[in-house]
């Protein structure tokens, strides 16, 4: 193994840019939640304090993952993938909550395996690709957890998992033409199954209702974003409280952010993420390891797709899917899962001797 040039944080060092970006994005989330709350109080019912607690947990996790080498990750990938898939199967034995089976109730917190299948799937496909396994088998095995998530049902995560798989196949050496043919075939058979009544009408409604009228939450959130204007309303909470937006601290938090900090704030947020993906892309191009390339591409694809779907939902150009904005939305599962992604990416950075 190559000797590390500089060791700043953690046993193997930490990429400073990544760490600062991670902390800053967490901070933006606190600030936005603060503007939506009645102030900060120190109990877990308070959304700001809740998010801060999760952030601290996430930061600890971020550093903890620095201890795990890529070789170890590579070695345990199949085991991890298998375990999470098993958990997804076990979910079907639980009692449905509000008509869906998504969480294991662990008392104080809920555990949501579908957050970790995003990571497991990326690692699984990367490892399989880098070891040149049969692409058809890879595709078929990938489809097992996706189908499990679909029947929870969780349309948002299903789409995300499909997008991750698709993006990773697209950057592999499989012919693009072949991929698109399969996607086309898949689409046609999906609607075929739909017609035959195999699929819950809950997902169907989500799609069809969009074409009739714009969702109430979306039109409200468009108003809030517009009201933000160029430089934002900065903590003028009175007006945004008048614009009622459902799930404003979770899936629709971007509208509150855009209201408070305006177009300038939006550009800053986009800029931070763009800088992050630019740094990741540079490693993808420069690293020699196919495993690392695919892992980075898969994680980037996952994050980009989440951001894209979230913003598109909030500004009303696609139907409501229930996708959180990574590191901005209130929610423990999402922030912890994102911390794992950042942790692994950090490990790839430092194993490529990129510390700043």
């Amino acid at each position, binding site marked *: 193994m190559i000797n590390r040039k500089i060791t700043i944080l953690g046993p193997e060092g930490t990429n400073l840019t990544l760490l600062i970006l991670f902390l800053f994005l967490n901070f933006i989330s606190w600030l936005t939640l603060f503007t939506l709350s009645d102030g900060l109080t120190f109990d877990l019912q308070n959304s700001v304090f809740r998010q801060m607690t999760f952030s601290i947990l996430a930061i600890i996790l971020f550093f903890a993952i620095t201890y795990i080498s890529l070789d170890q990750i590579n070695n345990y990938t199949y085991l991890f993938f298998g375990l999470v898939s098993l958990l997804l199967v076990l979910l079907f034995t639980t009692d449905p909550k509000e008509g869906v089976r998504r969480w294991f109730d662990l008392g104080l917190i809920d555990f949501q395996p579908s957050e970790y299948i995003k990571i497991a799937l990326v690692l699984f496909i990367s490892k399989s690709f880098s070891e040149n396994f049969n692409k058809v088998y890879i595709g078929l095995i990938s489809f097992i957890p996706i189908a499990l998530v679909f029947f929870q049902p969780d349309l948002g995560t299903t789409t995300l998992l499909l997008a991750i798989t698709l993006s990773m196949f697209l950057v*592999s050496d499989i012919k693009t033409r072949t991929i698109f043919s399969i996607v086309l075939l898949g689409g046609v058979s999906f609607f075929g199954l739909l017609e035959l009544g195999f699929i819950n009408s809950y997902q169907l409604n989500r799609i069809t209702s969009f074409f009739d009228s714009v969702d109430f939450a979306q039109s409200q959130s468009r108003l809030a974003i*517009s009201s933000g204007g160029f430089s934002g309303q900065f903590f003028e909470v009175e007006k945004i409280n008048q614009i009622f937006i459902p799930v404003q601290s979770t899936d629709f938090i971007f509208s509150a952010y855009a209201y408070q900090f305006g177009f300038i704030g939006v550009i800053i947020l986009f800029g931070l993420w763009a800088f992050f993906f630019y740094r990741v892309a540079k490693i*993808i191009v420069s690293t020699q390891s196919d495993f690392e*390339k695919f892992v980075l591409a898969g994680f980037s694809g996952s994050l980009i797709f989440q951001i894209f779907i979230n913003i598109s939902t909030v*500004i009303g150009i696609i139907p409501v899917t229930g996708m959180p904005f990574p590191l901005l939305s209130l929610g423990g599962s999402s922030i912890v899962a994102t911390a794992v992604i950042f942790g692994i990416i950090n490990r790839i950075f430092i194993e490529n001797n990129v510390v700043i």
Partner: protein
Amino acid sequence: MFFQQKFRLLSFLISVIFLGLIFNIYNLQIINREDAIESVNIQTLDTFYIASPRGEIYDTNNNKLASSSLEPHLFVNLRKINDKNISKYEQYIKYNFTDLEDTFISDLFESKNLMVKVANITELSFDERQSLSSLDAFEIFDFPVRKYEYDNIASHIIGYLGEPSLEDIKSFPLAAYSNIVGKNGLERYYQKDLAGNPTQIIFQGSEIKEIVNGSPGKDIISSLDIDLQIVATESLLQGMQLANERFESSNKIQKGAVVVLDIRTNEVLSLVSLPDYNPNNFVDGISNREFNELNITGAFNNYPIQGQYPPGSVFKVVAYWLAEQENLYPEGLSSRNGKIDCEGSLVFGFNDGSQQVYNDWKEEGHGRVNLSSSIKESCNVYFWDIALKIWRDYEGTSSESILQEYAKSLGFGELTNIDLPYEASGVVPDRNLFEDWAVSQPERVRAEGWLGGDLMNLIIGQGAITTTPIQVANAYRTLISGKLSKPYINLDQQDNKELLLEVNETFINFLLQDLNSVTNEGGTAHASFSILGNNVKDVGGKTGTAQNSGDKNNTSWFVGIDSISNPRYVIATVVEEGGSGSAIAAPVTRRIIQSLRGVNPTPVKFGEITE
């Protein structure tokens, strides 16, 4: 195998998609912002508040002091004003209301409110009003107009109105809506009752959706007698003019107070504070310059309840009461009839061996004096002897502050709780207070702390003691009626508690007799009261001339009682830097007593100079 070329192409495509998203947000936040704000306004209800007519204020004879009337006013609905029509409306207002200043008009349109008030349109004809209301953004609403019928008279009792400050809004949250609040006097003390509930004009978008009528405020019937108030104000002004003519003072003598209380009920019949102001000037807002000018003269102070003066000899009644109650007379005397020799000064020694000389205001002395004659002639030596007795008998014991306790049971050093805002409490000093001051304001006390000399000062109403005119009037009323209660102006009083005092008929009769002697032959105020003729036998009072530190002239005090046979009124008069009480405050009080007795008041004439 990772395919680098496809990755670059995909990255490029994603970048393009995100630029599309940013463009979309740009459209929302920058291009379509106005429309969005309009829709936000449409889906949220906003309320504009118009004050309801305030309750009216009457005097005890049903004379209207402060009236309220609803008059039509022109308003502009600012939600209907946009870049296209703003100049049209501005021109229209300029053309129709020529007396409005241009800056006022342009400020109107910059308001963040839903509507702004342009002008009172009572004078306009029906047709003119019709043509105004035909314009879309113009609205006509009734708006209450406050009028103070007697201008400056009783201004400090009635108070005035103004825009609420942040502090005001804390005390009266509703005032934030109607944007008007009582700033002083009854207008402030009874703000909640007087203001009523404002009318709500509910907007949806730029349209008025609903009008919820408010309720007018409650009227106040006050104990004030406006005719007496006018006489009292005139009398005080005459007294001040006289003082300015007769004394060489570095400051213009212009501050003073009169309090007239009804002894039976403790109603306030008159409460004069000078200098005063015209509350009508505040109705449409007052300029900063005018406000500052008034402020510099002290016109906003309500001297009868806020002016804190050493009371001088009018305070002697406290020791007078104490002496009778405790059987505590100068050394060697055992009753009120016992006499001492007043030689014009008192030479004595304290326990610490220090030799002191105290000089009475009358150099040659008052001769043989007892308790009665030392009230009549305002002899200091007699009272100093009482103080010495207290000091020698009680120094350092729990009874050391016996004089202060008597003062406090008459209401000194504490708020009278009259129904007016910002009352001051004055100070009755004792050893504890001096010890507190030694820490908090060391410049006010000597290092030695509380000494016998301080008690001797206190007994004649000098030194650190301060009192307000209402406290003095209230103390005399308490002593004469035997009841301690709060003086009040609003006749609608619930649970007015009375505290009974330990005084018997005999004492009250002695007190009245001795106060009567002050205005009669040989008394300090006789010169000022002799004009009453035979009636002088039925009035009484006590003079006071309180020394001030620095080069300030003495404070002129007089407390009058009318009548002796049937005590009905107590009148306390103070002229700041007015000099001798018997010379200035006494004739002012005499003129007020004339009015109370239904006699034609004769001009205030300079009396005898005494203390």
